[in-house]
């Protein structure tokens, strides 16, 4: 019932609401990517040279293989580290949940670059980890964590772990705790109860988190170039090299097209078996899982130890930044020989940093506003749309989430250039909005699901017009979704390096870009001071929130 023609009168309103996002995606996403496709076949005459080189050469095949291998191992690693953590998070007391939420959110709020920097400090030969292990006597020789596979693995898992923990947490929260009690009553011991009940029921969460982590990993660029070696060269780095240094757009485009096709195929396979719409849909149902008598002490111990280790893994690199920011040799040695405030002074005297900070904020605010408008409007439109096209439109709206950002960056770069929009804050903000809108869309969709459509009808029946209804009834109901979406959008924008590298210039340089340049061209210790301040601000915001919430 109700699956009428998509252009029927009934769908006019919903289509109108979907239109802004769809138009933006077509103009700024599909069209530029079509441009990449075109230039991969040569600039003037049709040629397959670039593809022959990309596919024929052992080097690029190896790099593609590396990319997939790293993405796969990072995904598996993230699942292993996140699973017990999310499980414990879903089963402990409310005050512990707050603490663990803090542990997940703090890194999430902290720039990925800052975290990579922190890992370099922790993992280097005379870094905290090696010194610690040597002192305890576990090792005689320092372990080489950096500039190899382990470096990339540690760095990427850490950056991507929140994306794994949050869907998993949602999945665990939606499991009815009475199921475990029932299983126990039916004779299942603690481990079998876990394996037969919890494991299969949390599978959608694993799949959702796994997909996000895998898709994001495939397009990774920053972490492998700062923490890996030549064997960990990933395809995005090669795309950037051919574009930026060799001016070989054909080759860069061909590699981008192959990457795009690979990504979309993997996504299609996933979609077939799991379905994208199940993501983020975890809702509290029934009696929540509890860490209680339905499990054995040993089991509880195993989970708690794993979760504690995961928590340390998450938070340690963040916290180490704070003392290291006043070390004289932050990138070289731990413990520091001497302390100094020189790096903070540098920060104070160098206007680059504050200017970049405010530019980042300005761009993030614009990106949030744009993506809120587009995402909310599209989510409402789609939820009211009655058509068989609905799942297709939904998947299309999500695609920016799974397309490697470097492809979006390259596409926008060539799109903006003739429009003289390179270097404009608005241009970058629109790019960020492109990346962030799916998050807003998902969040608003989720909160609309719990918004009874009768409430909307009731308001209109009671005499409100649609806009009054939206403002007074719907908006307050989807407010949590809007807030969650804005936070995602803000972080997406505030943390982006790749788009910023391509789309900004001296006047619109963002903070992550300045940090990236600092890390790449010179190990400038000022970065550590910047990182310390950013972390400090995030901590203050989060802690204030926790305190205020408790008071309520």
């Amino acid at each position, binding site marked *: 019932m109700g699956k009428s023609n998509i252009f029927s009168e009934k769908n006019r309103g919903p289509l109108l609401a979907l239109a802004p996002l769809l138009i933006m995606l077509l103009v700024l996403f599909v069209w530029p990517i079509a441009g990449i496709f075109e230039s991969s076949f040569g600039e003037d005459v049709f040629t397959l040279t670039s593809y022959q080189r990309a596919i024929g050469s052992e080097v690029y095949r190896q790099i593609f293989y590396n990319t997939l291998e790293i993405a796969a191992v990072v995904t598996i690693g993230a699942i292993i580290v996140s699973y017990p953590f999310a499980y414990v998070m879903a089963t402990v007391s409310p005050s512990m949940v707050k603490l663990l939420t803090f542990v997940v959110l703090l890194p999430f709020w902290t720039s990925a670059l800052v975290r990579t920097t922190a890992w370099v400090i922790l993992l280097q030969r005379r870094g905290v980890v090696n010194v610690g292990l040597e002192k305890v006597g576990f090792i005689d020789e320092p372990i080489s964590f950096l500039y190899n596979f382990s470096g990339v693995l540690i760095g990427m898992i850490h950056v991507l772990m929140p994306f794994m923990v949050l869907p998993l947490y949602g999945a665990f929260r939606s499991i009815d705790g009475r199921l475990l009690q029932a299983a126990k009553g039916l004779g299942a011991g603690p481990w079998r109860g876990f394996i037969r009940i919890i494991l299969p029921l949390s599978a959608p969460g694993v799949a959702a988190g796994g997909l996000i982590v895998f898709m994001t990993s495939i397009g990774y660029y920053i972490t492998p170039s700062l923490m890996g070696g030549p064997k960990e060269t990933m395809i995005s780095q090669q795309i950037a090299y051919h574009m930026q240094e060799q001016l070989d757009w054909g080759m860069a485009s061909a590699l981008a097209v192959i990457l795009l096709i690979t990504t979309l195929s993997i996504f299609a396979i996933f979609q077939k078996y799991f379905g994208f719409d199940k993501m983020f849909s975890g809702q509290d149902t029934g009696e929540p899982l509890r860490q209680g008598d339905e499990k054995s002490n040993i089991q509880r111990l195993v989970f708690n130890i794993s979760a504690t280790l995961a928590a340390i893994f998450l938070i340690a690199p963040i916290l180490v930044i704070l003392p290291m920011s006043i070390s004289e040799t932050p990138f070289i040695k731990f413990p520091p020989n001497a302390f100094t405030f020189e790096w903070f002074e540098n920060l104070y005297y160098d206007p680059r940093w504050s200017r970049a900070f405010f530019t980042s904020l300005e761009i993030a605010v614009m990106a949030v506003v744009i993506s809120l408008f587009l995402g909310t409007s599209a989510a409402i439109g789609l939820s009211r749309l009655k058509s068989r096209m609905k799942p297709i439109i939904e998947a299309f709206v999500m695609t920016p989430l799974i397309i490697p950002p470097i492809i979006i960056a390259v596409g926008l770069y060539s799109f903006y250039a003739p429009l003289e929009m390179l270097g404009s804050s608005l241009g970058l903000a629109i790019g960020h909005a492109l990346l962030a809108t799916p998050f807003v869309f998902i969040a608003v969709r989720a909160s609309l699901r719990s918004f009874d459509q009768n409430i909307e009808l009731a308001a209109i029946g009671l005499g409100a017009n649609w806009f009054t209804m939206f403002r007074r009834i719907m908006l307050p109901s989807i407010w949590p979704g809007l807030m969650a979406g804005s936070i995602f959008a803000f972080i997406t924008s505030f943390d982006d390096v790749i788009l910023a590298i391509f789309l900004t210039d001296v006047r619109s340089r963002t903070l992550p870009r300045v940090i990236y340049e600092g890390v790449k061209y*010179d*190990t400038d210790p000022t970065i550590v001071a910047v990182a310390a301040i950013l972390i400090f601000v995030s901590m203050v915001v989060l802690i204030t929130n926790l305190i205020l919430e408790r008071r309520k």
Partner: protein
Amino acid sequence: MKSLKILIMTIITIGSIAGGVSVAADDELVFVSWGGSYQSMIRKAIIRPFSRDTGIYVLEETDPNTAKVKTMVDSGRVTWDVITDGEMGVLRAAKAGLIERITPAMVNQDHVYPKMKNAYGVPSEVFSTTLAFSTEEFPDGSSQPTSWADFFDVNKFPGKRALRAAPDTVLEVALIADGVPLDQVIEVLKTPDGLDRAFKKIESIRPHVALWYNAGGQPVQALGSGEVVMAMGWNGRFQTGIERGLPIKIVWNGAIAELGFFMIVKNAPNKGAAVRFLNQMVSPKSQAEFYKHASYGPVTPEAWDMIPNNEWSRLPSSPDNLTKAVFLDAEWWVENDVELRERYQAVISK
């Protein structure tokens, strides 16, 4: 979440107000270079005196990659004036028509070493890729590495190495280590046999390389932190490390010398200011300033008169160091870069 919401809103509001204040100047010049201590040297030795003398505000940016220059020039919206790069960068940019030709009428280069001149750029400094080792690992008084042969000899000098993740300079160094005399290195490199020889040499050291670096700061940090005991890298970066108190010593024997250039982007918006800037940069007086802030060699013999004798040993273009150095053949590298890079990537990622 309500409190969090208010906090975020507050931050956002402050941000949008503050972000609206932008920097604007009438007389300005946009200078784009590679950041780090190199750019800070330029800032101290040239930009500050230049701004003081001329009143022109120099806006600095980093990462002048050629693709961006190309997009700017192609789209007709050029926002950069002066960019810097190595000789290979100059040749590539000139070939793509991205930079202005520099005529003698624009910049007087009569006093520059003749073989350093280029029609499209003004040479700014001589820098070298050298060997450096950790004096903690090989302290004074004990046996210390003195040549690239020692770099490739892990029996004599055990420990991890750092090499660049791109082949230019590494192939030259490999041939020197393999016994090719300095004056024949470039010739041998251009033969297929020579290339095979270089790659073979690199394969021999591969298991001992802990860091294949992309960024110039990495080898210094790796040496300082003990990640590696020997590294190749830019002499200027090593020198900065030494001055920061890191246990590093530079070996000049077999240094690969390269030239840095300043270029003017085609249709630069402040071309007049750019020309003045380049003239000031290449003047013997400015050239003799560099050594105070970093260890780069001047491109004009006249500068040596103003540099104290005891500083000469750490500068790549000093007469003594030049005799132990090989100049990179930038033209040949521009021709063969992509192919060699792919081969190099294959070799080092095995």
